[in-house]
């Protein structure tokens, strides 16, 4: 790896860095065809020419991703000078980051919330949702017993028998949460279409954030159970 520290910003304006023609945020200069830096106000949605909706046609997104890859990939710039090579590297990495984020529904909504200032990395609360407290408590108890039993070499079948239905139960809850999330996605897209107020959108974002936190909690729980069960089988 190589490391450099610099404050040199790539000039990202509305005119071409090479021929000074107006670019209007295009990927390539309409006049001279040179690759352009990413305009400052671009986000993952606008990069693909999409509205900030959560319902995205995966096939169309992939096609657009491939179209842009053909143009921006460093393979096309092996013979270009260093400045253009670096631009291509920057632009194609942005494109890949954007596609990676938007092609995954969960990463997509997290990105949307982050942009809206509703979700910050590393601050996700890992608290049990109140309505699940009792069940989570029981599950954790069973998991502890399973671990102890395994260490002391006791018969695990009975414990497994208790954990497996609990595992199914929580997997079902995960599916429910995903359903909830999808429903809010649709509400969000409809709100955008109808030009809903800023407050209305913020309320939807808060709702999505709450569901995501719950989902992340249940997902971790399911993963833990799966891991423990895998160790005993």
């Amino acid at each position, binding site marked *: *790896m190589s490391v*450099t520290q610099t404050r040199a910003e790539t000039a990202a304006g509305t005119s071409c860095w090479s021929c000074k023609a107006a670019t209007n945020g295009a990927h390539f200069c309409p006049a001279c065809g040179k690759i352009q830096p990413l305009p400052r106000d671009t986000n993952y949605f606008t990069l693909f020419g999409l509205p900030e909706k959560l319902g995205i046609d995966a096939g169309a997104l992939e096609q657009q991703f491939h179209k842009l890859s053909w143009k921006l990939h460093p*393979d*096309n710039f092996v013979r270009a000078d260093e400045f253009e090579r670096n631009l291509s590297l920057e632009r194609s*990495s942005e494109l*890949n980051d954007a596609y990676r984020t938007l092609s995954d529904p969960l990463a997509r909504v997290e990105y949307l919330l982050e942009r809206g200032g509703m979700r910050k990395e*590393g601050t996700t609360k890992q608290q049990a949702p109140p309505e699940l407290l009792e069940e989570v408590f029981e599950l954790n108890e069973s998991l502890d017993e399973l671990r102890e039993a395994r260490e002391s070499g006791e018969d695990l079948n009975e414990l497994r028998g208790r954990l497996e239905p609990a595992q199914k139960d929580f997997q079902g809850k995960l599916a429910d949460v995903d359903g909830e999330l999808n429903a809010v996605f649709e509400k969000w897209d409809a709100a955008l279409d109808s030009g809903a107020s800023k407050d209305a959108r913020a309320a939807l974002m808060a709702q999505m954030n709450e569901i995501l936190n719950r989902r992340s909690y249940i997902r971790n729980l399911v993963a833990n159970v799966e891991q423990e069960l895998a160790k005993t089988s």
Partner: protein
Amino acid sequence: MEIKGRIVGIDLGTTYSLVAYMDHGAGHPRCIVGPYGSTLCPSVVSVDEDGTVIAGEAAQRRLLTQPERTIYSVKRLMGRSVEDVQDELKHFPFHIEPSNGNVIRVRLGEKVFTPPEISAFILRELKSWAENFFKDTVDRAVITVPAYFNDAQRQATKDAGRIAGLEVLRLVNEPTAAALAYGLHKQQRGRVAVYDFGGGTFDISTLKLISTDEGDIYQVLSTNGDTHLGGDDIDNVLLGVARQEIRRDLGLDLSAHPGCVQDLRKALILAKHQLSSAEKAEVHVPLEDGKFYVRDFTRREFELLIEPIVARTMGPVKQALADAKLVPSQIDEAVLVGGSTRIPLVRRTVGEYFGRAPHCELNPDEVVALGAAVQADILDSGVTTMLLLDVTPLSLGIETMGGVVAKIIPRNSTIPASAQEMFTTGVENQTAIDLHVLQGERELAKDCRSLARFQLKVPPGPAGLARIEVKFLIDANGILQVTARDLRTGELHTIEVQPSYGLNDAEVERMLEESIEFAEQDFSERQLIESRNEAETILKATEKALNNETVAELPKAERAAIDQSVERLRDSARGSDYKLIRTNIDELNQATMHLAELVMNGALHNALEGKRLDDV
């Protein structure tokens, strides 16, 4: 514009390396045949008493006679630390010099080299093959690496290219290169799994091959593997069995006889190869003190011995499919790459998992180099009609509080890929922020691979005032670049970089200068010297064999044929045609086969002083 030389594709393998080019007339890539008539260049390097370095077939022959001056499988050491390779040292005769630096140094005779320098000798050998073939300079290359190579291993490979005087235009993952060659050959579309089991590394990649208006896209969906799992490990299992039996039955400890171990290893590898087509293989190796190791291996026994190694490949296979969100039945084709996929058990295992017979119509030894040549041509021509979208095999993370790793670029992200993080100060008048970058899937920093530690310098001020934006970017080679921008001040700050493993630029530059002296020697001149040396060796051995009493049993006609061959070889060795010398060496080898057998079977095999059968 500066005039450039030719561009080639190179497969820098653990056991063998190859060089290929795009044959525009034929419309497909081809491997270049070396001076020994094969496209395979053994990845072996040897240093002479006079300091001359030789690589390839000639070096491989010295493994038997001068094992302490010769090294094989150096790829296992690339981008690793002394601590990392302790396990390897049990199985490989590497003479590692004690050092406190972060780069391994290997002793070969009187000289000491780093792994990139040793690999550079192999690359120079291939470069000379290609230059001899084109009668033109070769100065740029696409080099393949195992898909599961980490940043340090990739950087070490790139350094090797530079030291060899090659501009490395791209590092391409081996299974991806294979898919490229294979897709071009078959016009295959759909989902493909490439199972690449080579001499020292194992990779599995899943890809999607798509036709678009602009051309074909090869999009890697996921990759996994084990950079220390290969045919070498199979050889080591066999070698372990043989050495144990030799100790038990013959009371002989081979630790003090490295030449014997190499003889044994060679015979076992031959048996391994035979067992790919035969049901039984015989091993017959002369040892010290007039003792022989004679042993039959059946395929069944062989398969039982290697089953655990083959099973180890399946963990990464399952993970790669899970990461691509695929089940085996969704894979349209499974493609086999690498010499170890010739083993029937491997084919069976892969076939059973995917529920279909795997494809292996392209030569599994050559397919990676052919793919590298295709990519080299794409980069050279400037007209892209095929696009490779590869992924990073390992997650990239930074160490946070409590030694926990925060992942910032997940594994299997399409490259180039990037992530930006903002850093600030935690206490008043803090002047630097420490960063630790790692690669790996584990939660804790101590379980991941350290890439680098560095400091962001900040001007003193209240806590939380500094705003340093750090951008992590994995380029199309899978190598990380880090840039830091101070968003608040206008000053330029430097970062103190401490790469955890690897060479710095100045070291690479120095090695490049040093290595140029090795490049000066003309190709044919070097071939001539090597072939004369070989001729001398075989002539001496023949003379010795003829002086021993078993010769009485040799029919007159045979003796006359040997004498004739000896004369012819002597004559040609006085001339300067290295090809003729080689032909005559082969001829003498043929003529002395029976003689060698007599000596082997006779009581006086010691007269041969451990020479190989075909050297006699």
